[in-house]
């Protein structure tokens, strides 16, 4: 059932065991083998989605809008196998680390912007990106996906990680996930959803395409 990995992502033996890996400058102390650097699914929701065989539709070389880039752990791997990659993060501290990740990746574009306000970066991020990867772990995760729909190509994919506790610490994660997927349905058709255990507790991953 496992879907194919995008070009530029391989399963390789790194540091004694088979792992997902991409080629690029190391970023977070991950083990390496030559130019290959291990991609740890426990530290990356997109890594977990690939590890779990979800249909991300990534083939390699895509144009990507990444929302919630933080210090660049995951987006560094994305920039390794994808094409032009726009990385939006609104906290200055991690954005500083993101800058060093971008320094060795000429097609990674760091943006210190609020993903809830796409009008502040729509003059920079191009229309028709092939994928939006979203991992903002903040309240209003569905709204962020809806607001950023404007950047996505009609045949593009939304790859969304939803953290239940960010919406509401007190509520049952399953209930939070229902509400969020309902809200998404206004503009997206859901293709696949699953929880990211054992890599990430109480996280739901969603693959969707624009309606």
């Amino acid at each position, binding site marked *: 059932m496992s879907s194919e990995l995008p070009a530029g992502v391989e399963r390789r033996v790194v540091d004694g065991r088979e792992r997902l890996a991409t080629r690029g400058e190391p970023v977070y102390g991950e083990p390496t083998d030559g130019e290959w650097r291990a991609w740890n699914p426990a530290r990356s929701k997109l890594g977990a989605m690939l590890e779990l065989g979800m249909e991300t539709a990534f083939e390699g070389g895509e144009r990507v809008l990444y929302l919630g880039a933080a210090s660049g752990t995951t987006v560094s791997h994305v920039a390794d196998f994808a094409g032009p990659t726009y990385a939006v993060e609104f906290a200055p501290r991690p954005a*500083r680390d993101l800058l060093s990740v971008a320094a060795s990746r000429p*097609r990674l574009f760091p*943006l210190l912007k609020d993903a809830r306000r796409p009008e502040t*970066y729509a003059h920079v991020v191009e229309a028709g990106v092939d994928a939006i990867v979203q991992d903002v772990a903040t309240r209003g995760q569905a709204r962020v996906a809806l607001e950023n729909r404007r950047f996505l190509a009609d045949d593009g994919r939304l790859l969304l990680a939803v953290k239940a506790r960010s919406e509401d610490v007190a509520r049952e994660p399953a209930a939070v996930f229902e509400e969020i997927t309902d809200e998404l349905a206004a503009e997206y058709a859901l293709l696949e959803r699953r929880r990211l255990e054992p890599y990430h507790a109480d996280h739901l991953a969603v693959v969707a395409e624009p309606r």
Partner: protein
Amino acid sequence: MTDETDPAGEGWFAGLAPDEPGAEAIAEGGTETPRPWPRLAVEAGFATDEGAYYDRLHEATTRATRRAVREREAADDQQVKHAVRAMDDCRRTANELAERLAEWAGTVDGGGSGIEYARELAADADGEPFAGLARRVADLAAEADRLESFVETRTPEVAPNLSALAGPVLAARLLSLAGGLETLAKKPSGTIQVLGAEDALFAHLRGHAPSPKHGVIFTHEAVRGTRAEDRGSAARALAGKLAIAARIDHYSGDRRPELEGELADRLATIRARADDSSAAGDTDDGPATGSTDDGPAAGSTDDGPAAGDTDDGPATGGPNADGGIGDVE
């Protein structure tokens, strides 16, 4: 959704001169609706092809983000500065009022002292004339605690290395005494060593007193936990590492966990001297203040940590400067 507003908005590159990086346009511009910018930029002659466009975009986004990160972090250090000052004010005021309260309540009640006593009175002195005062003392103390937890979470984001070495609260006090991260990063370690001991330093400079060996960093275990004869050396070693930490935090922001180990090694060496009998040793452990333009020079030292010259004399801290510990053994 909002497609009716400026359907033909302009990209960040519109109107940029060929040699202009465009960081401002990235940071400040905006439009409702994205368009295929790479193609439009090539059509407009901004770039010869999409590859060249992306190269310029990389340059512009990197610059804009670096600048914005600096500005936002600078604003954050001011938050920490005000928070730690407010925390000290709340705590000092709470303690003063708690004393007054204890004096008063002691005439009626069994007696007690301090904030704890004020909390007890706040809880069960209803109807007494000092009940309102007791509640306010308890509230002030609670506000001080709340501000302290703010300082504890925010300072490590503003100055991660400094916070790791000094602890967040002392790191915030140093930021506050210096006026901000940038000014702290520009101070020689000899100045950092005596930040918060300005009164003692000026007395020394007027010739009335020995040079202070440490200011607010006295509260650090490295100094306090070292026997009195070696405290000057410990303070100087600590100040040296703190100066480096502040510079890394300001200029690069990298984490350098090895600083902690280096400090521990220096301290171990200093403290070991206590065991090989106490003869000789450096007698002047005053701050290594480089000569300054408008600030009087303090005592020279043999091996003070490299102190870049500054043209600002000893920092005159904010409202808390007087709260510092000017220990002048």
